[in-house]
């Protein structure tokens, strides 16, 4: 799964640590998501999309 987390995170001047804290996960999980190593659950995808102020989950997470 491809993501736009890095792009959106930088747009909001947010560090991985800050995003992790807001999404209630570890920084390692954010790194894994940004690198496309880990596919999040719908709940986490929704939470991250909300933190990154995306209207739809598809704006952040793109299925290959």
């Amino acid at each position, binding site marked *: 799964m491809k993501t736009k987390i890095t792009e959106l995170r930088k747009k909001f001047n947010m560090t991985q640590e800050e995003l992790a804290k807001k*999404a*209630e*996960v*570890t920084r*390692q*999980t954010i790194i*894994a998501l940004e690198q496309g*190593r*880990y596919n*999040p*659950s719908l*709940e*986490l995808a929704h*939470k991250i999309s909300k933190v990154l102020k995306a209207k739809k989950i598809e704006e952040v997470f793109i299925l290959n």
Partner: protein
Amino acid sequence: MSVSKKAITKKGLLYRYIFAVVLIIFGLILNVLDMGKTDFFSYGSVGNYLIFVGILVVFITLLIKFTRRNKIIDERHEKVAIKAMAWVWYFIFLGGFVVMILDGIKPFSMSISMFVAYAICFILIIYVIAYKILEKKY
């Protein structure tokens, strides 16, 4: 429902303390009643062994309490843990098969307690290795 939770909760710590106390009390009872082997794992008696493990559990729990309080477990950790457990299962079957063959070639002369101790160590080692490998993958 939350995507993450604290690695160590107050309830978890309490259960550990209760477990330790039960072990220590059980160990003391066995010592008083003079029950159990005298050479159990070189601890003198089964009671001494249980008391030692109980004290160890208290020590580890205190260590966890003061060093890992803020550690968070999220869904990725849970996924890695499940996959690591699957690896453990494969290795238990493989290890069991190897032990059976080796025992057939040259029979082991080992007490059940010692065998179980080795088996638990084997499981823990495989789990830790599998977890570390899978953590890099996911």
